[in-house]
C-alpha cells in the first residue's frame, strides 16, 4: 500500500478520537446505549471537521459484532470491513457523483433486502447536497419510514441546499469548527506517533492554517514534512507556508500609519523580489489591520486573535498610534484592493497604488469631535444677536416687505384682461393679528414652507384660523371636533410640526390648537383657504366684468345675438 496522507491515516476510528465534536459523539453514544436510535442522521459542518469519520464510526457502532455499543471494538470483521470501506452492509454513496433520481431508485431497490450478516443495512450518502431535487423527493417516503433494518447517514457541508422535507425527517447534528488548541494538541499526538520533531510554535502555525479544519491542518503538516523531513525547524515552516515575514508586514503597517509612502513602496519591492504572492501579502496585511481594529475595540484581544506575548504587544503598540476611523478606512481600502488584485492585469501596480493611497490618506477627523466643535461654534454665534436662520431658497417671499396686512406674496397674479390688478386688498377682518411681531416670518410663509416638505400637513394648516401669533406662541383655531383639529393633536404629527416651526422661526415655538365654535367663526379671522377663496371669487367677478366690457366681445354679441353663459379664466399660471 502506498503512502497514506496523515489525514487519512489518522482518521478517527472511534468516538473518543473525534475531537471537538463532543456534543455529537455524546448524543450518539447515549442514543446507542439507550437503544433509541433514529433511522436517519444528517451530519453538517465545515470541511475537515469529522463528518464522514463520524458517519463511519456510527456505522461501526451500529454493526459491531461485539454487540451494539458506543465503543466499537475495531477488530471484528464488521469493523475492519467498514474501516477498509468494503462492508457489505454499509453502503457509502458519493452523493455528488450519483445525483440522479435513478441512483436513488436503485438504492430503494436495495433497501428492501435484509442485511447480509450485520444488524443494520446502513446507507452513508456523502456530499448529499448535490442530489437533484427529484432524487431528494424520491427519497422522501423511504426516509420517513424505512424498513427496520435500514439506517441512513447523510453528510454535507452545505445543509442549506437540502430540502426542508428531507431535513425534517433526519436527526441533524451540526459539527463545529475545531478550536486551535484542540487541533494543535491532536497534531502533537500525531507528530509524536509519527516521530516528528516539531516545535509547539510551528505546530500552532500549521494548525492555524487549517482554520478550524483538522484535515486542512494535517494536509499542511504533510506539506511541512514533505519539505523538511522528520526534523522540522521553525523557519522552514514559515517559508513553506508562504508566510510573509512578520518584520516586513510590521514595516509596511508602520509606513502606512506614519504616512511614509516611500517606505511602503519599499516593502512592496521586497515582496516582489522575494517572489511572494501579492494577494497573500495583502491578505496578511489586512489581517494585521484587522488585529489592530480588534485591539482597539476589545479589552482582551488575545483570545480573539489567537496571538500571544510579543506579537500581541507589537500589535497593541501599533494600534495605539492610529485612530479607529483610520484603521477602518484602511481595512476597507485593502479589502477593495484584494478583490481588485484577482482580476488585475498588473497586480504589482494595483498594490503599489493602494499603498501609496493608504500612505497619503489625510488623517480622519473624529466625527464626534467635529460635531462638538460645530456645536460650540453655534453656541458662540448664538450669543451674538444674529440668530435668524436663513432659508433664502425656501422663502416664498424673496423681499420681506413687512406688510401689516400680510398680503400673501404669491397671490394669484392679475388676469391678462385686468388693466389694473387688484387695487385693494380683499375685505378682511382688520383684527387679524398677523405677523406683526416677526415681520417677514409670517403665518403664510410658515404654511408655505410646511407645504413644501409635508404637503398634507401644510393643507391642514391652511384650513386653520390664525388666532394669535406672538412668538413663541402660535394659536390656531379649527372648527370644534373637526377632522383637522384631531389630526393636529396627534402626537407624532404635532411633534413634526413643532420641529418644522422651530426650524422656520429659528426658536422654539409652542403651537396650540384651539377649538372654535361655529357661532364664533364669523368673529375669528379667516383661514388662508377662506382668504384665497374670497379673493378668487372677487377676481372672478372682476374678470367677468372686464370680459363683458371688452369691445370685441360686444361686437360678437351684437352680430350673433349671443348670450354670455360662462367666463373661464385662462389658466392663471400663464398670465
Amino acid at each position, binding site marked *: *500500500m*502506498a*503512502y*497514506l*496522507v496523515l489525514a*487519512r491515516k489518522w482518521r478517527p476510528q472511534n468516538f473518543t478520537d473525534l475531537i471537538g465534536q463532543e456534543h455529537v459523539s455524546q448524543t450518539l453514544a447515549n442514543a446507542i446505549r439507550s437503544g433509541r436510535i433514529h433511522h436517519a442522521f444528517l451530519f453538517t459542518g*465545515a*470541511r*475537515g471537521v469529522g463528518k*464522514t469519520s463520524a458517519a463511519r464510526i456510527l456505522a461501526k457502532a451500529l454493526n459491531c459484532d461485539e454487540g451494539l455499543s458506543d465503543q466499537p471494538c475495531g477488530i471484528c470483521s464488521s469493523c475492519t470491513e467498514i474501516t477498509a*470501506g468494503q462492508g457489505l452492509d454499509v453502503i457509502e454513496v*458519493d452523493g*455528488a*457523483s450519483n*445525483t440522479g433520481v435513478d441512483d436513488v431508485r436503485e438504492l430503494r431497490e436495495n433497501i428492501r433486502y435484509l442485511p447480509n450478516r450485520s444488524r443494520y443495512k446502513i446507507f452513508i450518502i*456523502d*456530499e448529499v*447536497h*448535490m442530489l437533484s431535487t427529484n432524487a431528494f423527493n424520491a427519497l422522501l417516503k423511504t426516509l420517513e419510514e424505512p424498513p427496520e433494518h435500514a439506517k441512513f447517514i447523510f453528510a454535507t*457541508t452545505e445543509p442549506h441546499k437540502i430540502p426542508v422535507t428531507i431535513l425534517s425527517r433526519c436527526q441533524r447534528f451540526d459539527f463545529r469548527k475545531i478550536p486551535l488548541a484542540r487541533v494543535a494538541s491532536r497534531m502533537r499526538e500525531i507528530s509524536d506517533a509519527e516521530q516528528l520533531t516539531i516545535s509547539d510554535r510551528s505546530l500552532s502555525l500549521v494548525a492555524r492554517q487549517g482554520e478550524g*479544519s483538522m*484535515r*486542512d491542518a494535517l*494536509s*499542511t503538516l*504533510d*506539506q511541512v*514534512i*514533505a*519539505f523538511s*523531513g522528520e526534523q522540522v525547524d521553525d523557519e522552514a515552516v514559515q*517559508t*513553506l507556508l*508562504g508566510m510573509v515575514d512578520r518584520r516586513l508586514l510590521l514595516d509596511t503597517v508602520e509606513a502606512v500609519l506614519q504616512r511614509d*509612502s*516611500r517606505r511602503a*513602496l519599499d516593502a512592496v*519591492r521586497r515582496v*516582489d*523580489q*522575494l*517572489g*511572494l*504572492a501579492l*494577494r497573500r501579502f495583502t491578505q496578511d496585511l489586512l489581517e494585521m489591520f484587522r488585529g489592530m481594529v480588534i485591539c482597539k475595540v476589545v479589552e482582551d484581544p488575545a483570545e480573539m486573535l489567537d496571538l500571544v506575548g510579543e506579537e500581541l504587544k507589537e500589535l497593541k503598540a501599533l494600534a495605539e498610534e492610529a485612530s479607529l476611523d483610520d484603521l477602518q478606512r484602511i481595512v476597507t481600502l485593502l479589502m477593495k484592493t484584494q478583490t*481588485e488584485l*484577482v482580476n*488585475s*492585469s*498588473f*497586480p*504589482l*501596480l*494595483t498594490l*503599489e*497604488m493602494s499603498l*501609496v*493611497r493608504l500612505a*497619503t490618506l489625510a488623517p480622519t477627523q473624529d466625527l464626534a469631535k467635529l460635531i462638538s466643535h460645530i456645536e460650540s461654534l453655534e453656541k458662540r454665534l448664538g450669543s451674538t444677536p444674529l440668530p435668524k436662520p436663513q432659508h433664502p431658497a425656501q422663502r416664498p417671499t424673496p423681499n420681506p416687505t413687512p406688510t401689516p396686512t400680510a398680503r400673501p406674496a404669491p397671490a394669484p397674479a392679475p388676469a391678462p384682461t385686468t388693466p389694473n390688478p387688484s387695487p385693494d386688498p380683499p375685505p378682511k377682518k382688520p383684527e387679524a393679528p398677523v405677523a406683526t411681531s416677526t415681520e417677514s416670518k409670517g403665518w403664510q410663509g410658515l404654511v408655505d414652507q410646511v407645504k413644501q416638505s409635508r404637503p398634507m400637513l401644510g393643507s391642514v394648516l391652511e384650513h386653520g384660523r390664525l388666532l394669535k401669533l406672538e412668538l413663541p406662541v402660535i394659536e390656531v383655531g379649527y372648527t370644534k371636533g373637526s377632522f383637522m383639529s384631531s389630526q393636529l393633536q396627534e402626537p407624532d404629527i404635532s411633534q413634526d410640526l413643532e420641529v418644522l416651526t422651530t426650524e422656520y422661526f429659528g426658536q422654539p415655538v409652542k403651537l396650540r390648537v384651539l377649538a372654535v365654535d361655529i357661532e364664533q367663526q364669523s368673529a375669528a379671522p379667516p383661514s388662508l383657504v377662506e382668504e384665497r377663496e374670497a379673493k378668487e371669487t372677487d377676481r372672478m367677478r372682476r374678470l367677468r366684468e372686464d370680459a363683458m366690457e371688452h369691445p370685441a366681445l360686444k361686437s360678437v354679441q351684437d352680430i350673433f345675438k349671443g348670450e354670455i353663459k360662462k367666463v373661464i379664466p385662462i389658466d392663471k399660471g400663464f398670465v
Partner: protein
Amino acid sequence: MTFDQILGHKRQKEILNRALANGRLAHAYLFAGPDGIGKRLMAMALARAIVCEEQRGCGNCLACRKIDHQNHPDLHILEPDGKAIKIEQIRAFQRELNLKPLEAPRKICMIEQADTMTVGAANALLKTLEEPRGDTLLVLLSSQPNRLLETIRSRCQPLPFNRHPKSRIQAELEKQLGIASEESHVLAALSEGSFKKAFGKDRDLYLEQRRDLLKTLTGLSSGSILPTLDFADQLAADKTVLPDILEIFQAFYRDVLMTLQGRGDEELVNLDLKEKIHRVSAREDVSTILAKLEALVEVRHQLDRNVNRQLAMEVLLLKLAA
C-alpha cells in the same frame, strides 16, 4: 523535461524529490501559482519521475517518452472543455480510475485549470479526491486556487509556486531572444514573473511602438482637443492590441508615480524613457497620477464589459490629458 531542466522553483522540486525518495508522495496535490511559471512542466516532470523505468525521469526510456508525447495510458489529463471542466469529464475519468494502471506503477491524473471545474464537477470529484481508489496520484493545477471549493482545497496537499524574479526572466529573454537589456527589462517588468507572459508579448508593440505611443500621449494637452480625439480614434481602431496599449500606459504612469515617490530608477519599467518620465513627473503630483491610474483601471473594466471603445478611449484620453 526533468526537474533539473525547470528554471527556478528550487523548493518545490526539493519537496517533490524528497517525497519521491521517501515514498511519502501524497495522493493529491494542488499546484497553485500564477499562469506561465512552470506548474505544468513540474507536473509533467513529476509524472515522468514516477513512470520512468529508471525511476528518475531520464527522458530516454519508453515510458518517459510516452509521457512527453502525452500518450501514456496511465496519464490522464483533464482540461477545460470549452470554458469549464464538466461533470461528464469527471465521471469518465472516475470510470478510468476503477481500472488498474496498465504500465506505470500508479495512475496519474492532471487536472489543468482546476478552478474552471463546474460546481457539479468539483463536487463529483470530492470523494475521489479524498480517497481515490487504488494507487492514484492526482495533481490539480490552478492559477486561481481561491476559486476552488474549500472542500477541494482541503483534500489536496498544497504546493504553492512563486513568481519568477524579474532578473531571471530578463536573463532568459536575453539568452533566448537575443534582445538588448533595455528591451528585455521592459518585457520582464511587465511579465509579472511569468515566462508565458514575457515571451508571449507582442515585441513589436512593446518595444517599437511604445515610444511613439507614449510620445503622443504625453504630447496631449487639455487645450487642444482635436489631437486627443484623433489619438482616441487611433487607439480604438484595433481591439486586439488595446489591452496591451493600456498596459503600456499603466506602466508609464506607474513609473511617474514611482519617480514622484522618489524611488530609484532601477524600479522603473520604461528605463529607456527616463527623461520623459522625469519631465512628466515634474508637472504632476501624486493625487493627479493616482487619478489617471484609476481612470486606466476603470477603462479596462469597461472594456471587459464591451462598452463603446471609441467613447471609452475619448473619455480616457481627456482624463489623461487633463
